[in-house]
Structure formats: C-alpha cells, structure tokens
C-alpha cells in the first residue's frame, strides 16, 4: 500500500488569512482580494487543512468535536464538498 498523494492531504495556502468575526469565520485571499464566509463546520475543515490529514481524517476530527460526536462516515461527503470548494476557489496549495 502506498501513502496518499500530497493532493489527498489538503493544505491551506500559507498566504490565505483565516479570521473569526463575531460568531462567523472568514478566509481572505489577498492575491484575489476575495473574502469567503464560512460556517462553523467549514471553518473547522479549513483549520484542519494543514497538509497532514486526508479527508477521512479531517471528517473524523470534525465528527469528534460535535456534541454528541458524529461518525466520520456521516459527514465525510460534506467534508469532501468543503475541500472541493476550497480547491475550486484556489485556496489550497
């Protein structure tokens, strides 16, 4: 078995800024001067895009933070959709 390709472990671009504003979260892409508003679950996914975890591991970490905890399998599709959106917006390396 081979280790997952780097593209399977999403990594946020180092120049993209992440900030909480009141009870909401935004990522700001300075290259495009574009702001993306995130809900809590998307913000959690974003903060786990460090290049160390794949989507399944991110789903597991996000699922564990819910009360009550959610099985990773239940939220994997949503996590993958968030990552796909970050990638489509050019926010990942």
């Amino acid at each position: 078995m081979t280790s997952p390709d780097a593209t399977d472990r999403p990594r946020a671009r180092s120049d993209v800024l992440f900030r909480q504003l009141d009870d909401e979260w935004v990522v700001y892409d300075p290259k495009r001067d574009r702001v993306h508003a995130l809900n809590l679950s998307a913000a959690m996914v974003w903060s786990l895009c460090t290049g160390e975890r794949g989507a399944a591991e991110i789903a597991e970490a996000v699922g564990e933070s819910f009360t009550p905890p959610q099985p990773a399998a239940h939220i994997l599709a949503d996590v993958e959709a968030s990552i796909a959106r970050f990638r489509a917006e050019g926010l990942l390396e």
Partner: protein
Amino acid sequence: MSLLYYRQLLRQSRRIEAFRRAIRHGVRPGDRVLEIGSGLGTFAFFAADAGAARVWAVDGHPVIHVARTIARLNGYADRVTFLRGWLPDAVPDEPANVVIFEDFPPRLLDASAWRLLRGVRRTALAPGARFVPAGADLFLAPVSSEDLLRELTLDGEPPLYGLDWSAGREAVANTPHRVNVPREALLHAGARVGCVDFARDVAADQLGGVAEISVDRAAAMHGLVYWFELNLGGGERLSNAPGETPGSWGHLFLPIDPPLALAAGDRLTVSIRAEPLPDQAPGWLAWDVASRAGRRRGHEFLGTPMSVTDLLEASRDSVPELTPRGKTALRVLALADGTRSVSDIAHILIRDRPDLSQAEAERLVIAHLRGSITSKAPGAEETGYGF
C-alpha cells in the same frame, strides 16, 4: 481642518524651505505647474516665483477661498488659479508639466493617494511631466520599546477598570500605528526596502520589500518602524524617520506579538508588503520578521475591526439592494435635474415621507446632494444685481 491647522503647517520651516529650494530647482520659466492639495497656496506661490507661466492649485477644502485672497494680496492672481475640488472634477484647462504633491499618508501611498496620482498621470499631465518630490525611498527598522507597546495595548496589568480586554490584543498586534517612535528605540539605523518614482505608475510591490538586518544590541524587539524619505529634487531630501519632524506625515509602528528576545548581532530578515487590490492600488499592509529567536507576522486585515457583513458589502460578489436611505438618495438625485430648488425637492419628498417637516426634508436633500451637484442661485439672470 481649521486655519490653525494650516498655521501649524506653515511653522514647519525646515520642510517648507526644503520645498522652496526644490521648487526653485525643479520649476523652469514657462512651466505649467499643478499643485495638488495646495492648502493656503504656499508652494503654488513658490512655483510662480520660480518662473511658472501658470500654476493651478487644487484643494477640496474651503481654505482655498482664503488662499485665493492671499494670492490677490501678494500679486499672484494673474498666474495662480485656485480650483476647489479633487481630480477629475477639478482639472487644469491645460496639461501641466510639473506636479507638486506632498499630501502623503504615513505609509507614503495608500489606495486613495495612489489612485489620485494615477488619475493625475492619466488626465492632467503633458508627456514627460516632472514631479516634486521626484520619488521616495522606504525604510524598515526593528524597534524595542516596552513603553510604546504598553501605550497601545488594551489588556495591560492591572486590567483597566477590572475588565478583560484581551479581545483587542489581535487587533493591536496587527494594526500599523501612527505613533511617535523615539529614535533611541531603534535597534538598527534602517534598511531600504522600497523605491518609488512618482512620474511612473507605481506597482504595489514597489512599496515594500525584504531586507537583512543585524541588530545593534541585545533587546526585546516589539515591532518594526516604517518610514519614507522623499527625494524633492536638486539634492533636497525630507524624511519622516523617527526623530525627524519635517511634516505632518508621521511614521508607522508595526507591532509583533509576542516580542522577540534578540542578542547583539542577531540577523533578522524583515519584510513589508502592501497587498495589491484588484485595480493594483496598494491595499492591506503585511509585515514579517524572521530571526534565530523566532518568526512573527502581522497583517492589517487581521487587525481591522469589522463584521462579515462589512466584508461582504465590499465584495465584488455581493448583490446590492438599496436600503430605505439609499432609496431616498436615489429619489433626491433624480429630482435634482436643474429645474427644482432644494425646497421644491423637499416638498416633493414629503409626499412620500409625511413624517418629515419641510425643514427636516430640506436638510435631508442637502445632505444627499452634497458632493454630487453644481448649483446656481434662483433666477440669477433676472435679479438685476449684476451688470
């Protein structure tokens, strides 16, 4: 700004004399000179003294009406024309070949000054026009000053009024502060990180750069100071570096949090950049310090108090819809077609807004029209007062 403000500017004799010498050097007989942000017209008068055939002095502030009288009293009225407003509304009737401009923010060029100068280059200048100042260099230096940081920090010890102010810490650490950095707080004389030629379009990345610095002494580093030095031409230079007070520009203190414990001779890589906005104007400032003791970054975006709504309203993706105030503004502007007085417009407005008195409606109309109209007195042609 009151006349007292302009009086204080006139007291800065070192700055004004340096500009006088530079203008004498840079303006040649027959030149057409444009001064932007002319205030009381001092530099416009110097340009006329240097032999300019015509000088246009542009300023949006009503002080320009005082300046016009000063020009008349001092014999400049035939050569110096005062235009109230800002480009592109207030524009000379001939292209200028010399520009005088010194209305700089502490960072030299923010988006507003950058757009103003780009507009001037595009619309008001003859080919090969010269600028006074001709250009500027930008500098960074590391700073050690616990006092400075204490003054800026909200969450000091003991806590003010017994409250928890820690929410302000991120904002303070990521804000460029226009404060007076004492010269003795510098850990290095300053490294040049950028260079600007005002006669050419300035790319945002020229307003910053990277430098390698060795610190003079062991100290806790609390931030960077960012300043500029203007090249006025003719060998004249003016700086807003710590310890210099030639103008009203000031310099910027860029905090780092937490401080870095530096040893004498430690090498730092310091950098600053202005994130380019979509029109290439310089936007948010970002700074970075890398050293043996650690790495620190600051970014204006992280320091600016705002809500998601503020950000989305400024976004190109937002779908705008007029608020009730916006709808009133639209109605007022549509009624200002050159046939109705303010009172007439207010009278019509009251039909939709019966809660308003005539006087309140008139005040509202004037507020919505400000900056968007030219005006004439009623029946100016028929009064018979003129001849």
